[in-house]
């Protein structure tokens, strides 16, 4: 297991946009949105795979990611923090599906 983390605190990331046909732990309201990594939270099996009853779920780093309400909803002054698996995230400037 590589020790190097894909994202560091302060990194700007974008969540995936698509709507998978299976369970996922990226809520709809936070899809395709820009956020800032707070910190890594520890590794966990990817719920998207595990929830399909498969035993080959990759164990991924989960990151706390902070989103500004304005970026989520177009309004509001609060922040929302979500815990998101590494494969839900891309570097902010990367091409996002």
């Amino acid at each position: 297991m590589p020790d190097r983390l894909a994202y560091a605190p302060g990194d700007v990331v974008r969540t995936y946009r698509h709507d998978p046909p299976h369970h996922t732990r990226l809520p709809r309201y936070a899809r395709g949105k820009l956020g800032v990594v707070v910190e890594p939270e520890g590794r966990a099996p990817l719920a998207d795979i595990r929830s399909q009853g498969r035993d080959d779920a990759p164990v991924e780093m989960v990151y706390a990611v902070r989103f500004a309400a304005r970026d989520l909803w177009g309004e509001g002054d609060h922040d929302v923090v979500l815990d998101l698996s590494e494969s839900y995230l891309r570097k902010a400037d990367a091409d996002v599906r």
Partner: protein
Amino acid sequence: MSGDHDDAVISRQVRLLESLLEERGIVGGDTVDEVIDGFLAGASPVNGAKVVARAWTDPAFKERLLADGAAAVGELGFAAGGVQHQRLRVAENTDSVHNVIVCTLCSCYPLRLLGPSPGWYKSEAYRSRVVREPLAVLAEFGVTLPDDVKVTVWDSSAETRYMVLPRRPAGTDGLSEPDLATLVTRNGLIGTALV
């Protein structure tokens, strides 16, 4: 795809599994109920209140609590979540930040520290609205915050569980740790009340 669990299907599956386990003598008829009762017996917001009172009176404990919640509550004999080990993040309210917890995908909750969650916490209305318009939701709970206080909503979307560390009320300097604990409410630990 996300949203509500299909209670009917999962309940049927669990009942079937339970009866098969009993039929084959793998677990006794009361075993499952006993385990669940034992687990819930220790689950109460009194636990969270004790953690808060310790943090208010012991700055070194507070520092450890904010750095690694699960380890710090472990010092007091508590666990964060369910049967398995769970990370706990304690979000501290200050004069500039107010924290609220939610689980928009289901109803994740630090059960051991806060007891069984209230019905409204699991409601579609709370889960969908508090991430979008927390000030309006808080106002319905009777909480109004000064304009310069920023709200952070923690959506428990993975394995970490959250608890709010409320601000210590003014004029409580003379109170003992047990007396301070009596001031802390369940909603204060969720962030839908001030203490």
